[in-house]
């Protein structure tokens, strides 16, 4: 008997009745080619399932949790969130770059770090000086509490790059930088209102705009201390 692909697929998906299933079982035992076709279908089903499985382990966005539990009233509509390319477009805007760059540098100077930690470079904002060194060298687990720049979360972005959140001394500003090989592109920098004056690394303490950028970009979980150190030792190359 010749089995159509449709039938074999239904067999693999356990959709056939017992009699038909038994007859295919028997045919597979006799026919290696048929067995190989079935195996191909089975492998595909497993690969598809495995490809989406990690999504179940991702951190649940707060907005969904709040909505489902009733912790927050339903919004009239899903909020318009910044997609990655929009942040990119914002960073590429020279005018905006100068404004946020100046604000940031002003804070940085008061915090007695190097001048010009963020520069507008070929249409994007790049980390330099103290900020770049901190992003490249510092580990969240070992950095000094009074470091001029404190790194927070480290994670792998949707683009497959390393991204790290950072905060300036005294929690004056915070942001997100991504890149590879120690070249850090500043995706976002914002003033961080901090009650205690101290910026903490827990995700819950990130300024909303930074948290939103992280939520939008993070794939899987943030790196733990061991993974962060391993990534640093590889020079932030993947």
């Amino acid at each position: 008997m010749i089995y159509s692909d449709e039938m074999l697929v239904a067999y693999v998906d356990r959709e056939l009745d017992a009699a038909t299933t038994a007859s295919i079982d028997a045919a597979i035992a006799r026919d290696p080619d048929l067995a190989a076709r079935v195996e191909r279908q089975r492998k595909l089903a497993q690969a598809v399932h495995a490809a989406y499985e990690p999504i179940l382990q991702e951190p649940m966005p707060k907005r969904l949790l709040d909505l489902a539990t009733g912790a927050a009233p339903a919004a009239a509509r899903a909020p318009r969130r910044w997609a990655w390319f929009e942040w990119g477009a914002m960073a590429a805007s020279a005018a905006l770059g100068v404004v946020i760059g100046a604000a940031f540098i002003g804070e940085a100077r008061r915090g007695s770090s190097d001048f010009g930690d963020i520069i507008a470079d070929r249409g994007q904002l790049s980390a330099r000086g103290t900020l770049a060194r901190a992003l490249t060298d510092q580990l969240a687990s070992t950095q000094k509490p009074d470091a001029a720049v404190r790194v927070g979360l480290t994670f792998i972005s949707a683009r497959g790059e390393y991204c790290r959140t950072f905060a300036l001394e005294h929690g004056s500003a915070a942001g997100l930088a991504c890149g590879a090989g120690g070249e850090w592109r500043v995706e976002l920098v914002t003033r961080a209102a901090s009650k205690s004056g101290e910026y903490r690394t827990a995700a819950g303490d990130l300024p909303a705009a930074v948290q939103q950028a992280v939520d939008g970009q993070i794939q899987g979980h943030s790196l733990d201390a061991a993974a962060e150190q391993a990534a640093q030792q590889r020079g932030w190359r993947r």
Partner: protein
Amino acid sequence: MTPEEQQFRAELVSLLPRLRRFGRAITRHREDADDLVQIAVERALLRREQLQPGTQMLSWMFKIMNNAWIDEVRSRSRREKIFAPEESGEHIGVSPMDDHLNALAVRSAIDRLNDEQRIAVGLVLVEGLPYKEAAEVLGVPIGTVTSRIARAREQLQAVLSEPAGARGMQAAQ
């Protein structure tokens, strides 16, 4: 909050990870998927009384998501605007390298299926629904699901056997 509502919400919360996963298969985009889940949860909360006793809440939610995708989210999908083959890297999940490459290859192959086939794959292969339940979610005869799944698998096998996809499909060959 009434005890019924509490129970309804608790069940909804327990389903959220799977709703997000199905949303990712439908929309091919993380943010769109979460927007879709949000809209579906909002609608579910408004129509709580319409869930018949004995009906699977999961299938009901998938149905709401499918409808919301068709009549609302698809038209403003970010995915359509920014899609480019080299951006398929956005689907990379954090996992050991081989799995990582496999997942990338498989997801980008699924992304390239047409809407009908991709949603059928999402229900049957990703979420593991029986054809009958998938047919109920989609409001089509079971034979339609069977043929969509068969055609989708044919295309996936073809795409994933290509030399470019070969590296990522070691485990699936």
